[in-house]
């Protein structure tokens, strides 16, 4: 090879590559001269081995592919080469400062491969934001005198507990940062690693992302890739294109909806995690951060644990077999599954599905969601609502849900007087809701029926407590 003119020959190669010779099916079309052009020194031995004139020798294959690899390898040259760059994807997060440009065809092929691979392995893609989602970081300089001793104390406590790498509070000295991981983050990552291929996507810089990855994943086994601001295709938004994966298999966990303009349907928005007071101030003036309150999110019931459950449920649903309501696996879209899951949150609140409503109907009542002249009873968990006032004004019986259940247990209509609702409602709290009923009764706001061997009153208390509608309902 002529060492004096590498640039020229490279450009030629690039130009050739951009004539669209992708995929091995086009090998035969390659002109023979290409061979001699590229063949030199070290390759002679192989050329002899592959001298069969089939035109499909391994050598030719190699050259073709090498050119394709050139094409993926970018720089300004590719613009000079002129053609074929429309729609190419630039990937900067793969390796150091190197940038890989993938042609649209190749990107498409990689996407297809990814989809097949993921579906075979029964995995989906999960993109995780860092700040305010998995953790909270502030500059050491921003920590005021008030917070510093608390941090020191917390750090000492974690040191004592001997948590090792699973500590939640870290002081990144080189970056001058305090970083507090969100409670439950390790459980979250461990719990989802089998069902999801996880990627970090942050608006922070590369060094910060790498540092945090080390905290979250000391073994370097959890995350498939880390994408920082420097890698993103745009500076103000996040986009899934850099992953070269299928949008219909990807979910995003982020605290900011605005940065995902094109992928709202992939997004699970999580409550912002503000641990440091100085961080909270940046967002809003009032309120106290978790550090000031001296508490933290619950690792088993906090936001991350909740999202882990949701993500698991979505995964299970996505890969559930033989569900006639779902399209075949290849055509399933995780966004639809997510939307379906989300739609169920409030759907269950249809009063007709509530156990108390069903109980009332089972006892022969006709239930209505609002008061009408024919209404005889109003079942309410808490007093003080409009319906209760209205019912009282009209002289209708206002009873607690306990009445309904007691009637059910005793197989008879019990005197309403024993179950009248107190003036302010039992528990006096904001209450789970009250409802009016036509004919004997109606209920909503009640929840799950306890199946344990408790006395009716105890059970009712439990039931009402579970429903969150204001405890201590019955006073028979």
């Amino acid at each position, binding site marked *: *090879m002529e*060492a004096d003119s*590498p*640039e020229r020959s*490279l450009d030629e*190669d690039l130009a050739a590559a951009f004539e669209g010779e992708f995929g091995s099916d086009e090998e035969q079309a390659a002109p023979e001269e290409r061979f001699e052009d*590229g063949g*030199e*020194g*070290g*390759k002679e031995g*192989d050329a002899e081995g592959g001298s069969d004139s089939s035109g499909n020798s*391994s050598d030719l294959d*190699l*050259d073709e*592919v*090498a*050119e*394709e*690899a*050139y094409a*993926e*390898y970018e*720089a300004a*040259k590719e613009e000079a080469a002129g053609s074929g760059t429309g729609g190419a994807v630039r*990937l900067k997060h*793969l*390796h*150091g400062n*190197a940038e*890989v440009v*993938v042609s649209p065809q190749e990107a498409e092929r*990689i996407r297809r*491969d*990814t989809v097949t*691979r993921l579906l075979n*392995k029964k*995995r989906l893609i999960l993109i995780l934001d860092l700040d305010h989602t998995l953790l909270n970081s502030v500059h050491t300089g921003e920590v005021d005198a008030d917070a510093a001793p608390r941090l020191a104390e917390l750090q000492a406590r974690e040191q004592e507990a001997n948590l090792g790498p699973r500590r939640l509070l870290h002081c990144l000295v080189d970056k001058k940062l305090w970083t507090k991981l969100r409670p439950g983050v390790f459980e979250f990552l461990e719990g989802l*690693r*089998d069902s999801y*291929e996880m990627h970090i996507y942050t608006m922070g810089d590369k060094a910060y992302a790498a540092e945090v990855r080390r905290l979250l994943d000391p073994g*370097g*086994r*959890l*995350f*498939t*890739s880390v994408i920082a601001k420097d890698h993103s295709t745009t500076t103000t938004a996040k986009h899934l294109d850099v992953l*070269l994966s299928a949008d219909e298999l990807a979910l995003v966990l982020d605290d900011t909806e605005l940065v995902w303009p094109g992928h709202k349907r992939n997004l699970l928005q999580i409550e912002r995690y503000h641990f440091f007071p100085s961080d909270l101030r940046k967002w809003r003036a009032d309120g106290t951060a978790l550090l000031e309150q001296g508490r933290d999110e619950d690792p088993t019931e906090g936001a991350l644990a909740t999202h882990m459950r949701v993500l698991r449920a979505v995964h299970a649903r996505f890969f559930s077999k033989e569900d006639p309501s779902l399209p075949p696996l290849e055509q399933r879209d995780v966004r639809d599954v997510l939307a379906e899951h989300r739609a169920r949150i409030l759907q269950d609140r249809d009063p007709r599905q509530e156990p108390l409503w069903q109980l009332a109907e089972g006892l022969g009542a006709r239930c209505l969601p609002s008061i009408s002249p024919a209404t005889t009873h109003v079942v309410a968990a808490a007093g003080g609502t409009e319906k209760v006032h209205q019912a009282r004004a009209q002289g209708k019986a206002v009873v607690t849900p306990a009445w309904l259940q007691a009637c059910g247990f005793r197989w008879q209509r019990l005197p309403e007087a024993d179950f009248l609702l107190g003036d302010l409602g039992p528990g006096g709290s904001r209450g789970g809701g009250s409802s009016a009923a036509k004919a004997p009764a109606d209920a909503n706001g009640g929840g799950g029926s306890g199946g344990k061997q408790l006395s009716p009153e105890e059970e009712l208390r439990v039931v009402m407590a579970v429903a969150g509608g204001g405890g201590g309902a019955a006073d028979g």
Partner: protein
Amino acid sequence: MFYYLTLHKSLDIHPKHFGPKLREVIREKLIAETEGTCTGKYGYVVAVTKVEDIGRGRIRQDQSGYASFEVTYGCIVCRPYKGEVLDAVVTSVNKMGFFAQAGPLQLFVTQHLIPEEFELDSSTGNSWVSVDQATSIQPGTHVRVRIVGIKYDPTEVFCIASMKEDYLGVIGSDFS
């Protein structure tokens, strides 16, 4: 491949160094400015072995007081050639292939140039694993590859390499 070359360079020296240690200063500055750099023509300068000649300094006519010295020096350079077989260490793996490093050289092996028996496994970080699960390519794996293409940047040489040929492949790892 490594070469021993004699090269020339012009160095600007600040007047405060014009004294008994001038030669020493020039040598240090030469090493600082050349070792580890890369030119498209010669490849990477790995080490300066000898300063052969320092020309007469010429004071620059720009009121700065600096003097320029023409320095002739011998150095070892690393320049990749197409068709060269290299041993390299894998540095990162992704679904397009993997990156590896051989001394100062960065290499990229695309998926098309990895033997077909290797499949991507992303369950524990990214790695290419052979169908029989016996070999895997992950950061730290040692591979023997053949350079099939080179891209020259002013400050970097980038190589495309192939592992899909006889006598090429995984040869060990950092961990074993």
